[in-house]
Every structure is written in structure tokens, then in C-alpha cells.
């Protein structure tokens, strides 16, 4: 596709998406669409790091912080989410920097990075559960209903409004993805994911580049958590934080395709549609079946289609099959130990 054609396709697609809720008003289907858009945004945020070999299982933690900080500030201090969400994002970003800086500085990569971030989401989950006097623990938490201005409280009963908000947030995520894709940072990060030492020797500030993308990714994930909280008006530690949520992000991004901008969105569509159709088809008997299918798909995809559905499709469509794939798509970096 030429540049103009691609732009036109995006424009038409967007116009159709914006027009949709005004033509078609089934609340259930709109609800599913809103969920897909919000989770797509979260998965896109994860994939911004994941595509450069920075596999984080800590994003459940960032999402939980975004959701809980916003809700707690609203309930306890009466602070509007318009201020609460940025505070939640800053909190998640600060945590990302606190954990990320030593990780990158001391060259914690590969398995070790995955497990450190796993500990991070474990901590956030346990802290939310342990401070049950404020957060309701594992029973969940509900932001108070606004008595006055709905806009100020960011609470709307109308599905169309939420659809448009979610669409805007999702679009923002895609735009940021493309912005990173076109920036110098992308080349720096690809170099880092292939060989950290060589990248550093070529003048790339490894720690700074990794920190920037981690911060961006954490901020966006926290925003996704806050928006999810405002939309659902009910959060539990297990739905917005913890290892299961982190794995779910990884899973969706990989199924859809890590290396294309719409990959995580395709992943979100597939996972949420799958869960919903199983739920409708089997009712309460379906408890557990959706995860069974997820898990099987995840294993099969990693073995047979590591680039994901959309990634593999796009590869097929591109006429000149590029034989040499970029090394970071095939091989992760060896674990580098400090002083080695």
C-alpha cells in the first residue's frame, strides 16, 4: 500500500468507528467494544516494551496502581479523576523508574528481568490485598457514585460516551506506537535488543533508552487501568493487577502480533470475543474453559506462529518475502551479568 492509500484506509476506518455508536446502539455489543478498546490500549502499551525484547510481567502492577490510586483519591479525598488519573500515572511511572533504573544499570536482562518484574506485580497485588482497610482487599473496590457534576467525576451511564472515550484513548495508544516506531529511539532499542554491548559501543545510552520506553509504557498502562476502573466502576486486585493480568497482556500481544501496531488490538479482539462467546455458549459451565483455550493457544502460537496472527498475515501479504528477519525478532539477548 502506498502512504496515501494507507492514510485513506486509516481515515475511513476511523470515521466508521466514530460513526458506529450513532448508527448501532445495542448496549451489550457496545460494552464489548469498549472493553476491547480499553484492553487493546493496555496491550499496546505492553507491546511497546515487549517488541524490543523487554518482556515485563510487572505491567499488572502498573495497571493496578493506575486504577487503585485514581479510585482511592476519589473516594477518600474527593479528588476528581481528572487530577487523580495523572497522579496514578505518575505513581506508576515513579515505580517503573525505581525498579527499572537499577535493572537496566546493572544489566538485568532476559529471564532475570522477567522474574524481577514478576516480583513487582506480586508486590502490588499483595499490598492491595494487605491494605484491605482502605482498598477492600480481594473483595474489590467501587468508586463512589458522583452526586454532582458527572463530567468532573468522569462517570457516565451512557455507553456511547464511554465508547468514544475508549476509542480516543485507543487511538492515542496507536499514535504513540507509530511515533515510537518512527523515532530514533526505535533504532536504538532494536540495536540494544540485538546486542547491548555493541549498541553501547556505537554511542547508544542503553540505560536511558530503556528507561524512556519503560516509563512511557508504564504511564500508558496506568492510564488504561484508571480508564478501566472509571468504566467498570468496580475493580478487584485480580482483575487489574497481579501476575494473571500480566500474563494476559503478554498472551494477547503475542497472539495478535508483537511487531505490528494493530497486533495487540487483534489480540484483544480475539481474547475478549473468545471469553465472551464461551461465556454465552456455556454459561457458568464455562468457568475455566476460556483460560484453557487461552493457554493452549498461547503454547501453540509460540511454537508455530511466534509473530502472531496479524504479523504472520502481513508477512504473507508483502510480496517480496524478506528472508532475513531482524535478529531481535528471532533471538533474545544473552543474559549479561555485570562484570562478566
Amino acid at each position: 500500500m502506498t502512504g496515501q492509500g494507507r492514510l485513506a484506509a486509516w481515515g475511513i476506518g476511523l470515521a466508521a468507528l466514530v460513526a458506529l455508536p450513532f448508527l448501532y446502539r445495542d448496549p451489550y455489543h457496545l460494552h464489548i467494544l469498549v472493553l476491547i478498546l480499553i484492553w487493546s490500549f493496555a496491550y499496546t502499551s505492553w507491546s511497546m516494551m515487549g517488541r524490543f525484547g523487554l518482556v515485563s510481567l510487572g505491567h499488572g502492577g502498573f495497571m493496578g496502581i493506575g486504577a487503585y490510586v485514581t479510585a482511592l483519591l476519589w473516594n477518600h479525598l474527593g479528588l476528581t479523576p481528572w487530577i487523580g488519573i495523572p497522579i496514578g500515572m505518575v505513581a506508576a511511572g515513579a515505580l517503573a523508574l525505581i525498579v527499572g533504573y537499577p535493572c537496566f544499570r546493572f544489566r538485568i536482562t532476559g529471564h532475570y528481568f522477567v522474574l524481577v518484574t514478576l516480583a513487582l506485580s506480586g508486590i502490588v497485588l499483595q499490598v492491595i490485598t494487605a491494605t484491605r482497610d482502605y482498598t477492600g482487599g480481594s473483595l474489590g473496590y467501587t468508586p463512589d457514585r458522583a452526586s454532582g457534576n458527572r463530567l468532573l467525576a468522569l462517570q457516565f451511564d451512557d455507553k456511547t460516551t464511554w465508547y468514544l472515550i475508549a476509542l480516543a484513548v485507543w487511538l492515542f495508544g496507536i499514535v504513540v506506537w507509530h511515533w515510537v516506531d518512527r523515532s530514533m529511539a526505535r533504532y536504538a532499542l532494536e540495536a540494544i535488543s540485538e546486542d547491548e554491548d555493541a549498541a553501547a559501543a556505537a554511542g547508544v545510552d542503553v540505560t536511558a533508552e530503556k528507561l524512556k520506553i519503560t516509563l512511557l509504557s508504564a504511564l500508558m498502562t496506568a492510564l488504561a487501568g484508571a480508564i478501566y476502573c472509571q468504566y467498570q466502576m468496580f475493580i478487584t486486585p485480580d482483575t487489574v493487577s497481579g501476575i494473571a493480568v500480566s500474563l494476559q497482556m503478554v498472551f494477547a500481544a503475542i497472539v495478535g502480533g508483537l511487531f505490528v501496531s494493530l497486533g495487540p488490538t487483534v489480540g484483544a479482539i480475539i481474547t475478549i470475543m473468545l471469553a465472551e462467546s464461551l461465556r454465552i455458549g456455556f454459561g457458568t459451565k464455562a468457568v475455566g474453559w476460556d483460560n484453557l483455550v487461552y493457554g493452549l493457544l498461547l503454547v501453540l502460537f509460540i511454537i508455530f506462529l511466534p509473530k502472531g496472527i496479524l504479523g504472520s498475515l502481513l508477512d504473507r501479504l508483502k510480496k517480496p518475502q524478506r528472508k532475513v528477519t531482524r535478529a531481535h525478532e528471532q533471538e533474545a539477548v544473552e543474559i549479561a551479568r555485570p562484570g562478566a
Partner: protein
Amino acid sequence: MQAFLDVFDIYLLEAVINGILLGGVLALLALGLNLIFGVIDVTWICYAELVMIGMYGMYFLVQYYGLSYFVAAPLTILLVAVLGAALHYLVIAPLLTAPPINQLLATGGVLFVLQSFATVAFGIDFRNLGIRLPVLAFGDMNFSYARLLSFGAALVGMVAVYLFMTRTFTGTAIRAISQDRQIMALMGVDTRRIYLITSALGGALAGLAACLLVLLYDVHPFVGLSFGPITFLICVLGGLGNFIGGFIAAFVFAEIISLGGLFSDLEWGYVLAFAFFIVMMFIRPAGLLARRR
């Protein structure tokens, strides 16, 4: 002496000893995971779920088929060993040349599969063996026999693995492969067979841990999440693949959880353990016992 006892009051001592007993089982879990990592260079994220399946195996063998505990235990160990070998054969073997992250995530998928399989097949009820072991009173302190038994069995299991690794030809081959995986194939060792044996051995250790944990905890599909993450952290803290480091780290973690739980809620014990882990990662990124080169 009395002053000493006043400072270390009886609950503290009890918590310390309970921590040591818990450490035994954690060390057993960490040993299995370390073995897999050291030899095959793969992290089984789903390791705790294998233990969970083993616990269900024990539950059904004892409760439904009426087998005695000591007959059911070897069967369970065998079952989980077969599961471990199957996991290697079906999931890890096709991915051996793939990036390590992919192997990690594939076993993450297996985690989902095992968890939801248990949910679908056994439901989400909490089940227990119904074996109530007596409590040993020592001074003012109480220790359950279940903890003592599992500590003892864990130690025996670890010694058995140690002897296997040092005294048998296969064990020597396993240790050799963990040192240099390329050269051993040239020395006439069938690496695929060794990998399969190691996976079965790792599974068997998970099975043994399951037999012991089922005495201490109720079984439910998500029980793996309560000790799975801790096991990984122990292995990383000890240095992935480093058996002795893992052993020490298991006791350090068990003490932190036990003492943290004494002063506050059990969750704070876990929070402390996680936080300790992150701090330690920055001080000793390659594990507790890593030599500074």
C-alpha cells in the same frame, strides 16, 4: 539466660523454627526448578501448577480410591514425573532453539492450561486429605507433625537427588551437560534422553513436594499461585541453576515470610519477601553466592 529468653520471646522462636520447617519444602521446590534450569536452560513458569496437579492426585488417590498415604505418594510422584517428561517432550523440545523468552511464555501458557484444567475437572472447591496429624508441644511451642514430616522428607529427597547426581553415570552426565551443552553431544551422550530424564526428575521432585504440601494446605486450582512466585524468586536469588544458592535462599525467604507474618498479616510477610528480593537483585544480580569476577 532469662534475659536472652525475654528478648527472643517464645512466639519469635516458634516463628523462627516454623520458618526453617517451611524452608525445607521451599528448598525442595527450588531444587526441582533449579535442576531444570541448570540442565535444560529453561524456566518452567508452570512448575507450581505441576505441584498442584500432584496435590489433586494425592487427594483423589487417598480420598476416592482409599489408598493409604504411603502407597499414594509414590504413585503421585510417578504421575508428576510423567507429566514433567510430557511437558518437555510436547512444549519445550520444539522450542529448544527458540529465544528463552518464548520458552518462558510457552510454559506460562501451560500454567493457564493446568490451572483451568483443574478448575474445569475438579471445580474450585477447597479440598483436603482429611488426615489430621497431631501437634507436637515442646515447651510452650507447638509444631505440627505435618511440618516436621515434610521437612524431614524434603531433606531426604534432596539427599537422594544429590546421591543420584554424584554417584550414578546418568547423574554425572546431567551435571556435565549443565556445564557444557555442546561438547557433551560429541562425547556420545544423547542430550535428548538426558533432557527427558532431567525433566522427569524435576517432575518427580514436584510430585514429592505435592505429597508434602497436601499435608499442610488445602488443594484448589489456584494453590500454585500461593507458592509458585516465591519459588521462582528463591531460584533467582540463589542464582538460577545454582543448587546451594537456592537451598540457602529458600531458608532466607521462609524466615522472612514467617517472621513478617508474626509481626503483621501474612500478606506483609510476602510483601517483605518480594521487596527483599528486588533489593537483593540490585546488590547481587547473579544470585546470593555469585562470585565477583
